């Protein structure tokens, strides 16, 4: 069956209110025949009721009542479509309200960031902000769609100028793979089908790009990291002494027979078996969920990490973190928060705010360092117990944390370890 070889690609979209982001998504769903007849009929009826002349494809993604009333996207919405080659998950994030919070959320798991630029306006503040967030969150691939080409007569010079502007700006960022496409989401140019209006453009359509961009090496396959999530002890006659460590591989390849160390205890052992319901595996890799059994009977519990003897993560209680703040109550210097990191939980104190970053200019403000909702800044924290971590640049799973307000239990911040 051919679906068994199809890959999963997650991408995030960001755009300002009028960039035509929802139209673009609507177009991809529509042209790839992922919109159903009853959905189409429902949005046709709503568009008519709202007195709109054309079918408003944005209504496909704006699902909540208040979103439809205000004509804006409030929260991250997840959309799905597939082609014979790949299955796609879109994290559609609003460009205005709580943009940082939503963009960061969508970006945290994405392989590709899709940035939209209105060809009439060129690179604006929001474009920069989106690119900065994509770079901070280390989204491996960036595709820049220069949209509304139909409104600038498919002018090549306009496209080239915007491209140059963006490249100049992106040189300051940590993005490796950037690609540009001239499109019109409204007319469907270069989305799924090649446009006859842009003979000067020789690159792929957006859909072709998304179907073919190389994502197989987006995971870290070098540094073995296995955060223990849950201990499986069946206590049945058949599996009397079974003690399996369940978890999802966060990095590297784990093989039967590997010499490993368990953190924090530091005890050494050997991987006896990598188990699944279908039987044993010789090796396992990210992002597989498996159960690991060790040769020696040592104490291992949730929050511990199994790593290779000769390749260990950092261990420490003092961390430098880039933090994105999500809560109306600003980050409290000297304040205490709950912290989640891989499968570990601890508490931490904010020791210092080094600077607040202006996410439109990358300027580091060391004077006004209050980190408010939707701000990003660099902080120093100290945790109540050691964490086993890597720099976020090296591993997105072992390098990320969230902070939790201990009074309300809300997730108030997301951090990337430097």
């Amino acid at each position, binding site marked *: *069956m051919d*679906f*068994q070889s199809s*890959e*999963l690609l997650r991408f995030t979209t960001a755009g300002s209110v009028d960039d035509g982001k929802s139209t673009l998504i609507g177009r991809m769903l529509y042209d790839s025949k992922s919109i*159903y*007849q*009853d959905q189409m009929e429902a949005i046709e009826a*709503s568009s008519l009721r709202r007195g709109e002349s054309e079918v408003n494809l944005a209504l496909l*993604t704006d*699902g*909540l*009542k208040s979103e439809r009333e205000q004509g804006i996207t*409030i*929260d*991250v919405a*997840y*959309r*799905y479509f*597939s082609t014979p080659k*790949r*299955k796609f998950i879109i994290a559609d994030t609003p460009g205005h309200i709580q943009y940082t*919070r*939503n963009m*960061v*959320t969508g970006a*945290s*798991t994405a392989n590709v960031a899709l940035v939209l630029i209105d060809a009439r306006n060129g690179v604006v503040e929001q474009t920069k902000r989106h690119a900065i967030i994509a770079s901070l969150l280390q989204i491996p691939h960036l595709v820049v769609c220069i949209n509304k080409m139909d409104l600038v007569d498919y002018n090549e010079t306009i496209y080239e100028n915007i491209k140059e502007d963006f490249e100049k700006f992106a040189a300051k960022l940590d993005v490796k793979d950037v690609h540009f496409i001239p499109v019109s989401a409204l007319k469907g140019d270069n989305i799924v089908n090649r446009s006859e209006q842009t003979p000067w453009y020789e690159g792929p359509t957006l859909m072709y790009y998304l179907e073919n961009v190389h994502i*197989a090496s987006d*995971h870290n*396959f070098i540094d073995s990291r296995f955060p223990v*999530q*849950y201990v*499986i002890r*069946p*206590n*049945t006659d*058949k*599996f009397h002494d*079974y003690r399996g460590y*369940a*978890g*999802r591989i*966060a990095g590297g390849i784990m093989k039967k027979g590997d010499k490993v160390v368990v953190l924090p205890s530091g005890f050494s052992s050997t991987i006896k078996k990598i188990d*699944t*319901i279908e039987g044993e595996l010789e090796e396992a*890799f990210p992002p*597989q*969920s498996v159960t690991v059994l060790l040769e020696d009977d040592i104490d291992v519990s*949730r929050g511990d990490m199994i790593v290779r003897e000769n390749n260990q993560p950092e261990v420490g209680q003092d961390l430098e973190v880039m933090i994105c703040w999500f809560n109306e109550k600003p980050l409290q210097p000297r304040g205490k928060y*709950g912290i*989640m*990191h*891989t499968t570990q939980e601890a508490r931490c104190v904010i020791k210092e705010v080094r600077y607040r970053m202006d996410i439109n200019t990358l300027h580091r403000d060391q004077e006004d360092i209050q980190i408010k909702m939707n701000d990003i800044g660099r902080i120093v924290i100290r945790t109540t117990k050691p964490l086993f971590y890597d720099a976020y640049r090296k591993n997105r799973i072992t390098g*990320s*944390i*969230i902070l939790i307000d201990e009074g309300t*239990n*809300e997730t108030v911040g*997301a951090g990337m370890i430097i």
Partner: protein
Amino acid sequence: MDYHLNHLRELESESIFILREVAAQFENPVLMFSGGKDSILMVYLAQKAFYPARIPFPLLHVDTGHNFKETIEYRDAMVERIGARLIVGSVQEAIDKGMVTEEKGFNASRNSLQTVALLEALEQGKYDAALGGARRDEEKARAKERFFSHRDEFGQWDPKNQRPELWNLFNGKKQFGEHFRIFPISNWTELDVWQYLAMEKVELPSLYFAHKRKVFERDGTLLADSEFIPKKPHEEVKEMMVRCRTIGDVTCTGVWQSNATTIEGIIEEVATTRMTERGGRTDDKRSETSMEDRKKTGYF
């Protein structure tokens, strides 16, 4: 060796991660089992997640009393086979106790009454996490749902104030009396579910496959002829080859004309269909935001 997972294995791994996270973070979780393919998938994934141990939480079926008999037969056989504990929350009981009033008329459905029976069952069992098989592709309000969805002490959902979810980090912290709804298969589409069930050769209730059944048409939807649905005088019962795309209560589950008698046939049909699976659910058609409205008060 080529280190990459196909999309079904990646979804499987994500769901197993969530299921294990629930077992680790909550004291008393429960898996909501409706007898439909999504909850069958959930039980199947839970078996994988905890193998060789048993699933470390019970199954909860909210019984409207208006079931297809095939659903109940399948449920009981499955529970027996995997050695799970089954809890049944009854809508009939909620009606008898006077907690809810039954809808009247031709389109009466116990669907919305399920919420009361569900919240009652959750409260009685003191469950702090209820696992559900809802998917984001099903319905536009569900597209905004989190994996770990916080509910206040009244079981209400506040879509505008949800906790952000990043990376692999799921915050299940709550105050006393609050609970979570957890949706491990959020990222699966209808097609993914069928492809996976086919790949894994999972046994399914006969209702999903095309069979001869007495049906009648109402508002463009085919409904199964049943003692629970009063018919209008002009509504004529005929026998047709049909199958269910979703399985809910008899009163609101539309059936589809189909000749798909095998799972491959179903995949073919789902891949080429032009109607969403909930297109046959009369409960969703009551208004543009009926799902969001029901979810806010505690429906799942």
